[in-house]
């Protein structure tokens, strides 16, 4: 009660102050719906952050061109977390408490989404992660959603795929600094060892490492059929290259963390014949995907990466939530989002289950002479 009284007294004062300090009253603009986004625009995983930001911006431009939301323009505030663990939480706090955003979009990396989620949950701001696949992200609370599949599914898909390739004896090399990698390895191993696959050797590395030869030497000694490598593209290139230098010729496979063009530039021929699971393929013939690819190519001159599509989907889903709820109230939007069924996204039709995770198909891609090629689609 006291708090409410205080806020009643303070709020008008605050507004008056804001008007007095002319020009600082940007939040009072009632003709705008302010959406926050956290992306790694600089630093190690900048390629993903930029892709996500591209996708989100595309969605915002489209919705504003179509007249905006609830008769208002959508305004996007993007904050950079510099690819640093710790930074994502700080900028989320800033967006949520100072800018009073009505919805949050971000991050790709699970470790960073896990920093954002508790803040959004506490403040009652719906958050949609475009690409964090670690299960823990949406477990934070009922305001946290995602438009991508989760690691148990992705790990199982790769384990099934490995078994179908006849790889009975595999090595697992995990990035222990990334929740994403740890989760993926865990679910891969579970399914793989239950179905007469044998994990012959397990090794680990830490994000930012440059030399993997000691781990790879141990893997080489184990004489495996293939290596499961669920890391980020920033390290995979060097790992693949050093593996080939050590004379390891077996194929490697991993998850959506492989998705970036710079992997092929760094690794060159070292990743030829490797496989990874992903959210969509630009080679997919479906009309929605082709239209999206064409639109993106016309604007930017390159093919969109997965995270462009996921960023776009996350933003569109949030707009759909606000539009259907008819308000920007966090709780109302959350209730609409929780009921999402067959939402037509670029990366497939999105249905959110009771744990706020998207149930969607995964695609398996292979790398052939530096080109990513589509192999197959795996239904959930």
């Amino acid at each position, binding site marked *: 009660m006291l708090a409410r009284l205080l806020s009643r007294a303070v709020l008008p004062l605050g507004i008056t102050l804001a008007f007095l300090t002319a020009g600082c009253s940007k939040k009072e603009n009632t003709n705008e719906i302010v959406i926050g986004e956290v992306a790694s625009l600089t630093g190690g995983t*900048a*390629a993903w952050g930029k892709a996500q930001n591209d996708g989100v911006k595309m969605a915002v431009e489209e919705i504003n061109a179509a007249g905006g939301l609830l008769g208002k323009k959508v305004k996007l505030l993007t904050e950079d977390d510099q690819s640093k663990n710790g930074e994502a939480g700080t900028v989320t706090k800033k967006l949520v408490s100072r800018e009073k955003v009505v919805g949050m979009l971000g991050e790709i990396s699970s470790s960073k989404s896990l920093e954002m989620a508790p803040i959004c949950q506490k403040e009652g701001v719906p958050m949609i992660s475009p690409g964090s696949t670690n299960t823990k992200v949406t477990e934070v609370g009922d305001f946290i959603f995602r438009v991508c599949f989760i690691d148990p599914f992705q790990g199982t898909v790769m384990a099934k795929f490995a078994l179908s390739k006849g790889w009975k004896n595999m090595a697992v090399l995990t990035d222990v600094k990334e929740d994403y990698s740890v989760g993926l390895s865990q679910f891969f191993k579970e399914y793989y060892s239950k179905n007469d696959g044998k994990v012959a050797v*397990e090794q680990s590395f830490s994000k930012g490492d*440059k030399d993997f030869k*000691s781990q790879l030497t141990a893997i*080489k000694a184990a004489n495996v059929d293939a290596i499961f490598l669920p890391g980020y593209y920033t390290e995979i290139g060097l790992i693949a290259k050093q593996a080939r230098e050590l004379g390891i010729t077996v194929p490697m496979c991993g998850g959506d963390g492989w998705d970036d063009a710079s992997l092929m*530039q*760094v690794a060159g021929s070292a990743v030829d014949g490797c496989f990874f699971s992903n959210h969509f393929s630009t080679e997919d013939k479906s009309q929605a995907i082709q239209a999206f690819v064409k639109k993106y190519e016309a604007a930017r001159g390159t093919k969109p990466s997965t995270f462009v599509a996921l960023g776009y989907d996350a933003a569109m889903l949030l707009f759909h939530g606000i539009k259907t709820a008819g308000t920007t109230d966090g709780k109302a939007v959350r209730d609409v989002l929780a009921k999402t069924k067959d939402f037509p996204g670029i990366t497939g039709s999105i249905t959110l289950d009771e744990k706020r995770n998207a149930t969607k198909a995964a695609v398996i891609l292979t790398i052939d002479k530096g080109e990513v090629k589509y192999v197959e689609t795996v239904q959930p």
Partner: protein
Amino acid sequence: MVYGVLRFINFAHGDVFMLGAFSGVYLNKWLGPALAGLPWGVSLLIILVLSMAICAALGIVIEFLAYRPLRSRPRLNVLITAIGVSLLIEYSGQLIFGATQQPFPQLIPAENLTFTGGLAVTKTQVIVLVTVVALLIGLRFVVMKSRLGLAMRALSLNPTASALMGVNNSVVISFTFGLGSALAAAGGILYASLYPSVEPFMGILPGLKAFIAAVLGGIGNIPGAALGALIIGITETLVGGYSQAVGLPSGYKEGVAFVILILMLLFKPSGLLGKIEREKV
């Protein structure tokens, strides 16, 4: 070396290392057509020498702009400035080169030399090792035999006395920075040849480790620094390779290297090959 002469840690050293690697990337891009006809050894040498020159100039400029005005001030001021310079270079690098990793050109042709017993060595590793040894011998020669080297040693012993003996301290300090930065650039290019992905923050950890190696070996002592670096490197690799056999994640490899440093400082603060000094920072 810079510590030996000036008594402060140049935190920006790792960033000059990064700039060396990047100048390798850009030199290769710009000079690519001109170098295409030459054998790879010659083009490697040209790129190495050019980026060493670029970074030597940069090192001298950094010293002139950032450290020289503070020379008579307390050492702590210079130390903090060094951190500032380091951050400035890192974030300017991010602005200019972009934040994403870039592939480093293959200056040394990829070729595996295999030996009996499954030992696999690449040509790159051999070339890097040979270049490093050559550079170390060259550095040792400059410091011990040349007149400037003599002046450097005199300056590190006692700046006032060396100035009284007719040594131009400013010139010697500039030379020290130039030499140190040139070596950092060479290090950057060789490092990037081994691990061919370069990004603006690549210099932080190698810079830190270089400092640890120097402390371990005895600060201001060139063979000591090389010995310290070998010990750190071998320990890390062994820990990384075998720690999982005893159930430790490989992330402990750096931890073990740092523990060695702490033990060293506890029991023999002057380093393996260092001389006892009374004055400590």
